[in-house]
């Protein structure tokens, strides 16, 4: 299954979750948030939220700014 994580196409196994996709780009235990197709998915729901073909997942954290 192909999904877009932070704009990059990634091949993930069928039934992969948001948690799986996040783990592919960061191992930070906190300070990270994810939005699936423009809707925030709370961290507590990452493991139970399944991805489907062509989903767009954004994974953000705080950086220097402002």
């Amino acid at each position, binding site marked *: 299954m192909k999904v877009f994580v*932070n*704009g990059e196409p990634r091949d993930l196994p069928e039934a992969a979750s948001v948690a799986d996709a996040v783990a592919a*780009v*960061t191992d*930070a235990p906190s*300070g*990270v*948030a*994810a*939005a699936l197709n*423009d809707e*925030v998915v*709370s*961290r507590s729901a990452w493991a139970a939220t399944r991805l489907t073909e062509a989903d767009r997942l*954004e*994974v*953000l*954290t*705080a*950086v*220097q*700014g*402002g």
Partner: protein
Amino acid sequence: MPAGADGRDPLVIAGEEFGSRLIMGTGGAPSMSVLGEALAASGTELTTVAMRRVDPAARGSVLDVLREHGIRVLPNTAGCFTAGEAVLTAKLAREALGTNWVKLEVIADERTLLPDPIELVDAAEQLVDAGFVVLPYTSDDPVLARRLEQVGCAAVMPLGSPIGSGLGIRNPHNIELIVEAASVPVVLDAGLGTASDAALAMELGCDAVLLATAVTRAQHPARMAAAMRHAVEAGRLARLAGRIPMRRYAQASSPFEGMVKRS
């Protein structure tokens, strides 16, 4: 001394007290250690960060620097061009950082980084409705500041001049008009170049100052941060002290009576 006469009365935003009236940004610092030294020297208690896609190669986090210095984090929506982008970014920041405070920025173009007033008010309204404490970066337009207050923003943050320009406060009269009308704190945000700019903001009656570039891109960031800290305190004190009116002609400070007479 009357209450607050020492210039150390707390800044209160949305019921939360801050001992420092200098809000810092973190953009532009050459390293995390330089940033940490500057933030410590500034005495700030509230500091902005931006939200971006995670970089798997990133080393060290700005969040660690803030935590180390006991500084509260204020996420921003820098780089957003539409209300929709800003609202999503604020919600991601709330989820990632566990705060419902947001410095709302919705810019119109990359050349001026000036706020887009239509998108800004739309985003502010949506975020207030969603339970956020919204601190909007706005132009120095008294009418727009009033609109932002009316939709429930917890402060208004007019620019002095464009972000990162160091041009100081281009329209002090408008800043005074905003201060006169506002019943929420006014934070002078953006464009300050040096300490006298920060002092002027406070003398005009602003409740606080928010700056980043003036410190982080100074030749000696920690030294400029200390200068800004003193300038904000001095400007606040001067405001509370009540300056003398400006006069067209001189007014002698020494008496004319009892002058020596030559024969």
